[in-house]
């Protein structure tokens, strides 16, 4: 501190000065940029339009795009502070290679890519092509996902490629495929404003997709039903709140279907014309009487009747869901029951009426469309010979080069490494050490690898710290391309500032690697920029459900995002829905009604582990906090993990509010978590956020996966709560967030 400041002659007037800007109005002078770069938010898949303010080559502010179709200028707290992620102190700056002394040391890019190719090729030559695993993300632009899919499957030649999307939306993907014949959410956000009934299952949009709440506000006629075991803020907004037991949603939905059939509240014409399997469905739900469902769900028969009748009598009911449904060993089938309910009442693809998965990451949808991991690009099926031939012809390659089945999914790649079948792993823009369930197994898996490459915008992260090679990547705000949001809206993402240090865009890294591999000319002829990938992707998607062929970057920019399908020749930009004509993507054009049975979740509480642990999010943080953990304002607003416990349970354990506790399961222990005693959570259940590496919820979660989607069962596992063994260093650690960031 200067002497002038200490005496009080200087009060940093310049730093705290205000000025008036024609766009922003009167505001802090340091936030007023020279130029505004239009883009789309890089956190969740609501897909808000925004501008990055750039001054002297630095991103100094952001503001919502008032003309964007999704958010009309509003942003959530993460979006409002997104520019801080670009200059975070934990950005990855240089390629790093683990040297002989076991330390990560800076190397040149050329060497990094050479080492990567040498190690990958070495493992593949020795142990087979599929000994290489690739784990990607939902954070890249679609152009990069498209390029990465080709590079992995055709260039590196391994099938064992999957992404973080399997930890998030895979159950929705599989559920859509089974019910409708293809991935692709049928509805649109506008439906939230047009529906007369909105039924949210395992979705806390108030915390996790807050900008969507405006659509509900804009709809005063709606009746909101929320099914969630935890009294979330969204549940508190509900007209009918269904506090059901964990993972009893299948029973509830079957019970509703049962009542609707029994009371003649279904659309028999629609069922006959557009679905198959009704008789089996009717048979399967017969035992789900209100009394039986009441036992399974803990709801009263009245609540079940009420929910069924409100939904059944609605003109345009909307069903939205997120992780409460997907994060389950029965995730796919739960999605199928949701689709069953929508199908038998004829509520698919009409204004206001659709089943609708509210996606997680900003571009999880993009990797599903173009990524070549869980399906061939353009929602083509690995199993379909005609799909393979069509794609091979478009690419001008032999159809035999395309795999006839998908490779291992994320959890199988992890277990494959334990079994020494995966020898080298490439992790892109994801942080499994915090995000993958049952940390012990994951660590064993990563330890078993011969070579681990982590490509990320941030370093150190818990995962880059154990990598053999770290590749620094550009992030949102530093690269160009497109994101697709939950409602299939393709929005433009633009580069506002240069990546820090020697970080490169993921596309540049992929193309550089292709050159080293010698497949650049064949797979990416002449590509230098995202637009080259986009143009090819448009051709590949033509005629598919996710048809991009009529889109151009200019058109997307002009309209602030356009929903697919947008085929060549389309002229009108309007809200689109899928299956509005009742024709589905199955061979016979009919949707499948699939009987699903309720089952108890895999790890029931017992005498040793008497609580059911539920995990989830908080509004201030994003995933594993690599992006938000160094945004000072977000850290201040949500500085540490906590565990929610009902006061009755706390009393019986002799625990008080703010005590520090350990969470213990058969697999591990999360140490020293702050206890939140609250009636938000039911007796017998506890909840903690999964964002915090320092209190990693996945130390206790289990290795149980949906057999169809391979999505982990994050939402329920049996735990015990004990008073923390070591008291936390409270005053030292907490301090002011600024002090910590500077430290």
């Amino acid at each position: 501190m200067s002497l002038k400041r200490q005496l009080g002659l200087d009060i940093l007037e310049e730093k705290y000065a205000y000025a008036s800007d024609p766009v922003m109005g009167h505001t802090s002078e340091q936030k007023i940029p020279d130029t505004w770069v239009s883009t789309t938010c890089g956190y969740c898949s609501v897909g808000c339009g925004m501008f990055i303010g750039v001054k002297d080559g630095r991103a100094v502010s952001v503001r919502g795009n008032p003309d964007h179709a999704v958010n009309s200028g509003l942003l959530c707290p993460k979006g409002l502070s997104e520019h801080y992620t670009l200059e975070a102190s934990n950005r990855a700056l240089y390629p790093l290679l683990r040297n002989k002394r076991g330390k990560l040391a800076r190397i040149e890019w050329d060497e990094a890519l050479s080492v990567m190719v040498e190690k990958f090729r070495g493992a593949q030559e020795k142990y087979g092509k599929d000994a290489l695993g690739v784990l990607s993300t939902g954070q890249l632009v679609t152009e990069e996902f498209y390029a990465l899919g080709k590079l992995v499957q055709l260039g590196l030649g391994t099938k064992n490629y999957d992404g973080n999307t399997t930890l998030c939306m895979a159950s929705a993907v599989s559920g859509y495929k089974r019910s409708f014949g293809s991935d692709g959410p049928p509805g649109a956000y506008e439906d939230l404003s047009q529906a007369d009934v909105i039924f949210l299952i395992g979705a806390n949009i108030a915390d996790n997709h807050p900008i969507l709440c405006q659509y509900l506000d804009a709809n005063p006629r709606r009746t909101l039903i929320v099914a969630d075991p935890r009294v979330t803020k969204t549940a508190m907004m509900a007209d009918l709140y269904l506090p059901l037991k964990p993972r009893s949603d299948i029973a509830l939905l079957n019970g509703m279907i049962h009542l609707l059939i029994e009371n003649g509240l279904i659309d028999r014409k629609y069922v006959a014309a557009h679905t198959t399997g009704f008789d089996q469905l009717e048979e399967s739900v017969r035992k789900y009487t209100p009394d039986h469902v009441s036992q399974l769900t803990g709801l009263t028969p009245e609540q079940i009747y009420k929910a069924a009748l409100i939904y059944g009598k609605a003109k345009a009911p909307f069903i939205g869901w997120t992780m409460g449904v997907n994060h389950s060993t029965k995730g796919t089938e739960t999605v199928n029951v949701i689709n069953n309910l929508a199908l038998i009442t004829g509520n698919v693809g009409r204004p206001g009426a659709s089943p609708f998965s509210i996606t997680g990451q900003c571009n999880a949808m993009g990797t599903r469309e173009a990524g070549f991991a869980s399906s061939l690009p353009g929602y083509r099926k690995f199993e379909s010979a005609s799909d393979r031939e069509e794609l091979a012809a478009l690419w001008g390659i032999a159809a035999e080069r395309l795999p006839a089945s998908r490779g291992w999914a994320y959890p199988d790649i992890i277990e494959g490494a334990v079994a020494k079948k995966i020898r080298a792993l490439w992790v892109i823009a994801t942080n499994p050490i915090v995000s993958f369930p049952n940390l012990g197994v994951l660590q064993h898996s990563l330890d078993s690898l011969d070579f681990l490459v982590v490509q990320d915008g941030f370093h150190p992260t818990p995962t880059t710290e154990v990598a053999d090679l770290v590749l620094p990547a550009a992030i949102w705000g530093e690269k160009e391309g497109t994101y697709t949001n939950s409602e299939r809206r393709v929005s433009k993402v633009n580069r506002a500032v240069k990546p820090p240090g020697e970080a490169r865009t993921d596309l540049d890294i992929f193309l550089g690697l292709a050159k080293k591999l010698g497949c650049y000319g064949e797979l990416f002829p002449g590509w230098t920029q995202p637009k080259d990938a986009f143009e090819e992707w448009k051709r590949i998607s033509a005629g598919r459900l996710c048809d991009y062929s009529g889109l151009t970057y200019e058109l997307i920019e002009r309209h602030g995002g356009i929903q697919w399908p947008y085929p060549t020749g389309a002229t009108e930009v309007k809200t689109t829905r899928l299956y509005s004509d009742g024709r589905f993507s199955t061979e016979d054009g009919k949707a499948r009604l699939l009987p699903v049975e309720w089952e108890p979740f895999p790890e029931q509480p017992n005498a040793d582990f008497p609580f059911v642990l539920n995990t989830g999010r908080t509004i201030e943080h994003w995933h594993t906090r690599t992006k938000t953990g160094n945004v000072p304002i977000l850290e201040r607003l949500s500085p540490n993990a906590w565990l929610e416990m009902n006061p009755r349970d706390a009393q019986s354990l002799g625990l008080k509010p703010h005590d520090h506790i350990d969470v213990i399961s058969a697999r591990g222990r999360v140490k020293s978590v702050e206890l939140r005693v609250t009636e938000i959570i039911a007796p017998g259940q506890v909840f903690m956020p999964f964002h915090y590496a320092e209190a990693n919820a996945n130390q206790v979660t289990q290795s149980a996966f949906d057999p169809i989607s391979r999505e982990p069962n994050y939402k329920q596992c049996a735990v015990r709560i004990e008073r923390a063994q070591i008291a936390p260093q409270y005053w030292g650690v907490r301090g002011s967030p600024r002090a910590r960031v500077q430290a």
Partner: protein
Amino acid sequence: MLLPLLERAKEKNAHFLVTPKTGASSGGVPQCGISFAPDAARIPQRALLPGEQYRFHFDMTKCIGCKCCVVACNEQNGNPADINWRRVGEIEGGWYPNTYRSYLSMGCNHCMEPTCLEGCPVDAYSKDPVTGIVLHSAEACIGCQYCTWNCSYGVPQYNPERGVVGKCDMCHDRLDEGRAPACVSACPETAIRIEIVNIAEWKREYAAHANAPGLPSADDSISSTRITLPNNLPPDTRKADFFRVRPEDPHWPLVAMTVLTQLSVGAFVTIWLLQLFGKTTRLGVAAMVSIIVAGLALSASTLHLGRPIYAYRALKMWKRSWLSREVLLFGCFSGVALLYAALLWFKLPGSLAIGALTSLLGAAGVTASACIYLVPARPAWNSKHTVAGFFLTAMLLGPLLAASLGIGDRRWLSIAIVAATAGHLLNEAGKFFWLTASDSFELQASARLLSTTLASSFLGSGALLCLGGIILPLFVPTWAGASASLLTVLAGEVLGRYVFFVSVVPKNMAASYLSAGKAAA
């Protein structure tokens, strides 16, 4: 009262919400049918009439606790993360599954009777005559932080980087441009709006609309914020941070300043009394020591200021602010005491009268000093125990200094010391029982702090007083004993004053359950 709206509007040549802009639009075409409330729908669309002011309206039924307002405010004002002119707190009640957690978003309440303004010694605050917005001038502020004690809502926050306080000004310059304040504009739920309120009407009606669970009573300052509460708030709704009570800032310069001024005043009064009863030996020496103590005290006080060079400005508001009065009275006290010491030292005539004046000014200074702490927003300070405690410190330390300098009759001094100590201990015990017996959250929380986190310091200070103020004077009647006594009691007083500062639980709005890191105060 007539507000010169039109004159001022003309004067500034400003368009005062007469021609509102509707947000910054880049001219594209929104495609879908949903358009959310633009800025213009969130702020008043007419000019203020005389007798009216702007206020916030917070609709708790709409707020989802997203904290966009907090982030937008920090961006708007370029504040560091640990200073939040707008904050969001949580209140919670009910029984699973009928649980309700609601959120309180609050900037400044632009009160009708702003307590921040009333206490300010340098007149840094003003209530804008046109808009009613409570404005703060960073240029005028000297960083004394007295306003941060006076506000029941914790609105003014000290920025140590700048050395001055800052607060929400309702983005009045944005309003002037026809734009909504940053928090209002950023709210995805349109839960925050700016409204016009008739001041006279509000003063009659505020109690029904300005109060909420988790908020201190609007009575302290007549908050202008209108709050729409949900109909279904459970009766047991209370602040989420109910059980998280943390010690406040110790304000070490003020610990030193208060204890040392009281020592100095006590010493001068003792000297004067001894002089009155005919003692003359070494009174000059004692007075010189006491004047040095007073000097130290006043120097220590400036260390508390963010802008010590402007300490003199604190004299400005002596008609209104106890802080100004304290500075003024102790300033006069020091001057007169110096004269008194000189007269005693040089054995000049007139010292008895000057001594009387010194004693009077000292007592007045200690009174002013105590009155600073009698603020409704800090309930544990706002009691007779504070005044009694400050005077008892003076009454204890004065005779102790005299005894350790070997002036006066040791027996009489010992009686005075033991009596003052007993009074002091009784006062502290009385305060503790008053806190425990209270039904106010803040007082009970103070008692909780004293009996848990601060128990060892609290009891330790009592033990030191017992040792130095009772045991040593009674059982070790020597000069060495008197010196040890002074040092022990001084240590006990410093520890006790530290406990006084850290054990106060200020009134404040509900906070989050999780600690938001140390508040910048």
